[in-house]
């Protein structure tokens, strides 16, 4: 079989120009945590538009269960920052109804695990109403909160809903990684007249990322549905989103030491999915690995692989594409088991090595 890519010789091409986190172009950048970036975005949009309000459990007086809404209640008061009882289906329904009625709610789920209680209002009330009403009733609402596995919180509190929500037409689904992503995409999500599911990550909240002056400005907005090339490379495309981007970047750093240059694509949005960005990259690298924390079956990686199969990108591949995902098990509590359930950088490097080394059949049969 004639390969489209030049074969990689492992270990021989160690690069000197290893990079760490690729976040912002600007040199004069300032570290800002994801939590603060979100807070800034919500604050700026609330200031700009009187119709924007925040509703959820502990968002006001407690300052947010994860402190994302810190200070907003003090600044905007009871009218616009509203603590709800612990009744997800009720307050999600009320938030959607408020959007029907002309407001622009930000509905916080303390974690997305609890959004399952309210999923009917996200899917049936928010996502479908604009279509069902023949375009009469827009539903501008943001459902946001931490998604996916945190640490040591067990099966019911460690689930990724990326695949679940991105399955549904009518929704936009965002899964940001860096502070810049969170700020720019949150502002875009609040401004768009469609329902958005905004999937954050508890572990990322406290991570500082450099933010440029441009990203810190109140005018900074990122487009929903556009991926970002976090790291350029020519040997293999690694597609990821949210916290999995960190895993992929760490793996890419390590692989760079062995002369393998990964092109890391941070999807930023799961719906719309920027497949063009993936296709462009695969046309260059001819190899593909996807990385996500969610379960494998019917997951984001599965969707990407299907789209590759169905398009001319298939012919660009020199080897089968592989998915790196959360293991197909409910999340265990014990830390030694938990660590085996989520993708680590070494899982990504192993997958990359197998795909690049045409060792798929050997590795898969082990």
């Amino acid at each position, binding site marked *: 079989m004639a390969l489209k890519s030049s074969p990689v010789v492992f270990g021989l091409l160690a690069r000197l120009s290893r990079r760490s986190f690729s976040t912002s172009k600007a040199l004069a950048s300032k570290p800002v945590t994801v939590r603060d970036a979100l807070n800034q975005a919500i604050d700026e949009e609330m200031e700009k538009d009187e119709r924007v309000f925040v509703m959820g459990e502990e968002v006001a007086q407690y300052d947010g269960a994860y402190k994302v809404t810190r200070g907003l209640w003090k600044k905007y008061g009871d009218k616009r920052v509203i603590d709800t009882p612990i*009744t997800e289906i009720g307050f999600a329904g*009320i938030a959607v109804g408020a959007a029907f009625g002309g407001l622009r709610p930000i509905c916080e789920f303390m974690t997305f695990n609890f959004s399952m209680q309210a999923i009917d209002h996200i899917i*049936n009330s928010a996502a479908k109403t604009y279509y069902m009403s*023949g*375009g*009469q009733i*827009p539903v501008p609402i943001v459902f946001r909160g931490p998604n996916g596995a945190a640490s040591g919180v067990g099966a019911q509190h460690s689930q990724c809903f990326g695949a679940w929500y991105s399955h549904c037409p009518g929704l936009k689904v965002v899964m940001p990684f860096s502070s810049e992503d969170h700020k720019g995409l949150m502002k875009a999500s609040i401004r768009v007249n469609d329902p958005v599911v905004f999937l954050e990550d508890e572990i990322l909240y406290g991570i500082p990322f450099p933010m440029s002056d441009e990203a810190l400005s109140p005018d900074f907005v990122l487009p929903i549905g556009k991926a970002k090339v976090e790291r350029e490379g020519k040997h293999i495309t690694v597609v990821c989103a949210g916290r999995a981007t960190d895993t992929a970047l760490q793996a890419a750093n390590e692989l760079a030491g062995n002369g393998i240059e990964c092109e890391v694509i941070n999807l930023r949005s799961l719906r719309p999915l920027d*497949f063009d960005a993936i296709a462009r990259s695969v046309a260059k690298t001819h190899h593909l690995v996807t990385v996500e924390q969610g379960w494998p079956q019917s997951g984001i990686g599965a969707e990407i692989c299907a789209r590759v199969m169905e398009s001319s990108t298939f012919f660009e591949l020199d080897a089968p594409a592989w998915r790196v995902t959360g293991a197909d098990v409910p999340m265990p509590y014990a830390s030694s088991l938990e660590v085996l359930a989520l993708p680590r950088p070494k899982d990504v490097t192993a997958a990359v090595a197998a795909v690049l080394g045409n060792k798929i059949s050997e590795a898969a049969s082990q």
Partner: protein
Amino acid sequence: MSKLIPSAAKFFNGNTIAKAAAPAVTTSTAKYSTKSEAKFEVKPYKLHKLTKGPATSATLTAEDALKIYAQLAILRRIETASGNLYKEKIIRGFCHLYSGQEAVAVGMRQAMRDVDAVITAYRCHGWTYLMGVSVLGVLSELTGRRTGCSRGKGGSMHLYGRNFYGGNGIVGAQVPLGAGVAFAQKYRADGGVTFALYGDGAANQGQLFEAYNMAKLWDLPCVFVCENNGYGMGTSVDRSSASTEYYSRGDYVPGIWVDGMDVLATREATRFAIDYCSSGKGPLLMEMETYRYSGHSMSDPGTSYRTRDEVQEVRQTRDPITSFKEKILSNELATPDQLKEIDAKVRTEVDEATKQAKTEPEVGPEELCGDIYYTNLEHEIRGIYPAAPLRHVEVTARSYK
């Protein structure tokens, strides 16, 4: 010209004609009737955590009598037409008829102001008409045609209009949504009240109690209206509900039981509810006791869980249209000729709309992807297989500000 049916007097139990208020000269809009208004007593309300309820004596003008009669008649006629269209297999899928319950919607609508909003469940054809959608808009949505109020893309359970948020096919989901619309009204301080309607079946849904709680906590101007027609699908209230006193099931939310077969009772109760909720006292619950003549939906003959005699008896003794007709005739607010004229007009209007609802085309295939998103960001919409991609189109003008 105006002849009172001599036997009409026997139907008017306990109603008193407001003799003093009946001037000899009639108004121009009521030129065929002899009285310009009359007073009626309604069945006593039952109150929950209220010291004062709605007025038990209702004044009805001749002008309103004719309007109400016309609305009752057209709602009944729309459902008859819907039932026939369903049997002709022109209406597909689900179809839930409102016949028997008309006095609830018509009476409420009479009391509502322009600023008030409504959300209901899937038994929504009549409400859609009352909220300003034409008969054609309703019927051709049911037949799935382009003139339908949702362009034929919603179907019988998904009708919408100005200040009318559906039409909802998920039992109980409309109730927190309605509380949310009320939340927006309070937030904007526009003085409006939202009516969130649900059946005795939905009354047991957990999300209702969540909505009651938040509506009360935040004093939302929301009226929760339980239309108790006796059966949630085929399960009678006694078999579904540990307490069938639906007006009291909001606990801390004050409630009123209303005779839902009497359009004047529902109107007076709604007036009271609007006063109550728009004065900042928070939500209110109204139970409207009513009855549905048809089965739950068209696939249900409605006879396995109740007897034909029961349905017959309600039709004969409590029908909201017959009883109202008798009331206004015996009180000389309208003449048989006037009502016949209305009946004829209603028949023509609904017949014409029915005919058009059958002959209008459906929207074109390009509208399969019409208005999925207000702002579409998808490159293309995936079709059934990769070689058949679709394109999103903006059909309805984007007017959100």
